[in-house]
C-alpha cells in the first residue's frame, strides 16, 4: 500500500513540471552561482580540473590528501589575488597542462608522490588566475570568486572520488585511462592550433 502511494505521488509530481530556469534570477546568489558554474563552462578549466581529479584518484590516500590541501590553499590565494588586483589570461598554458595531466592518467606512470601536489598547485594557480569576472562591480566580484573556488574544488573532488572508485575495478579503471587519453588528445589539438598561429605569423 505504501509503495502504491509513493508511486501515485511520483506520477502526480511528474505531471506538474514547471519551466527549468537555467540561471538563478536572485540578486547576490546569482553572482555566487555564476562563480560556481564558471569553471564548469570554460572548456579549458573543466578539462584541466577533471583530468587533475582523475589523476589524483589513481594515487594513494596520503598523496591525495596532501594534493587536495595544497590545491585548496593555492586557489584561495589565487582568487584573493584576483579580488585584490586582477586576473591574468593564462588560457595558452591550460591546454599544455591538461595534455600533460591527461597523458599521466592514460599511461599511469609510477611517479614520486611529491609531483602531484606540485601539479595540483599549478592547476589551482592557473585556473584561479584565469577566473577574473571582468565587468562586474566589486560586490559582485566578491560573491563570484568564492563561488568559482567552490566550483573548482567540487569538480576536482568529484572527479578524484569517481576515479578512485573506478580504480578498484578492471574495466572502469580502463575507462578512466580512456578519459585521460580523450583529455590529452583534445588539449594537444588545441595546442597545435596555438602553435599553428605562431608558425603562420612567422611565415
Amino acid at each position, binding site marked *: 500500500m505504501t509503495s502504491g502511494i509513493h508511486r501515485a505521488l511520483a506520477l502526480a509530481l511528474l505531471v506538474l513540471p514547471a519551466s527549468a530556469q537555467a540561471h538563478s534570477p536572485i540578486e547576490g546568489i546569482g553572482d555566487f552561482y555564476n562563480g560556481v558554474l564558471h569553471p564548469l563552462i570554460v572548456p579549458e578549466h573543466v578539462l584541466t580540473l577533471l583530468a587533475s581529479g582523475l589523476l589524483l584518484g589513481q594515487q594513494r590516500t596520503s598523496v591525495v590528501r596532501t594534493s587536495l590541501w595544497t590545491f585548496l590553499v593555492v586557489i584561495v590565494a589565487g582568487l584573493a589575488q584576483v579580488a585584490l588586483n586582477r586576473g591574468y589570461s593564462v588560457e595558452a598554458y591550460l591546454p599544455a597542462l591538461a595534455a600533460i595531466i591527461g597523458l599521466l592518467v592514460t599511461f599511469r606512470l609510477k611517479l614520486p608522490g611529491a609531483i602531484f601536489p606540485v601539479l595540483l598547485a599549478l592547476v589551482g594557480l592557473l585556473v584561479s588566475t584565469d577566473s577574473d569576472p571582468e565587468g562586474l562591480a566589486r560586490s559582485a566580484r566578491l560573491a563570484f570568486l568564492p563561488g568559482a573556488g567552490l566550483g573548482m574544488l567540487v569538480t576536482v573532488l568529484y572527479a578524484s572520488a569517481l576515479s578512485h572508485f573506478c580504480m578498484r575495478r578492471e574495466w572502469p579503471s580502463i575507462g578512466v585511462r580512456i578519459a585521460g587519453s*580523450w583529455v590529452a588528445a583534445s588539449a594537444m589539438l588545441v*595546442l597545435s592550433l596555438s602553435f599553428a598561429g605562431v608558425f603562420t605569423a612567422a611565415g
Partner: protein
Amino acid sequence: MKQKYSLAAAFLLLLIAGTASAHDGTGTVGGFTSGFMHPVLGWDHVVAMVAVGLWGAFLGRPAIWILPVVFPLVMAFGGALGVAGVALPAVETGIAVSAVVLGIMVALAAKPPIWIAAVIVGVFAIFHGHAHGTELPTAANPFAYALGFVIATGLLHICGIAFGQLIKWPAGRVAVRTVGGLIALAGVAFLAGYA
C-alpha cells in the same frame, strides 16, 4: 501488473515532455556539438571507428583497451598536422581505405601481433585526425570542438567493442565477421564514389 501500469504512465509522460531550451547553439555548446557530430555524420568515419572496436574485440586483451586509449592520441597527431596546414595526400581515400582494410581484418577475424595491428590502426588514425583537424581553426570554440570529435570517436569505438563481445558465441562470431565484411564493402563504395 502494477509495474506495467507504472512503466506505461512513465512512458506517456516522457512523450509529452517539452523542450528544455537551456542553451543556444553558439559558443562552447555549439563548438562541442559540431565537433561531436563531425565523425557521426560521416559514414566513412563511423564504419571505420566501429571496425576498430570490432577488431579490438577479436584481438582480445590488451588490444581491446589499448586501441581506444592510444587511438585518440595518434588521431590528435593527425589533427595537429591538419591544423598546421601540413598536406596529407589523399586524405579521403585514406579514410575509405581504412574502412576496407579494417573491415577485412574483422571479416577474416585476423589476429596479427599487436604491434602490427597498432601500426595499421595508427596510420589510419592519422588520416581520420587530419580530416577532423582541418575543421578545427574555423570552429566556434576549438577546445570544445576537439573534445566533441574525440569523444564521438571514442564512443564509436566503444560501440564496436560492445558489439564485438558477441564473438563469445558461435552465432555472434558469424554476425561480427559479417558486419566486418559489410564495412569493407562500404569502404569499396566510398572509394568508388557510390557513397
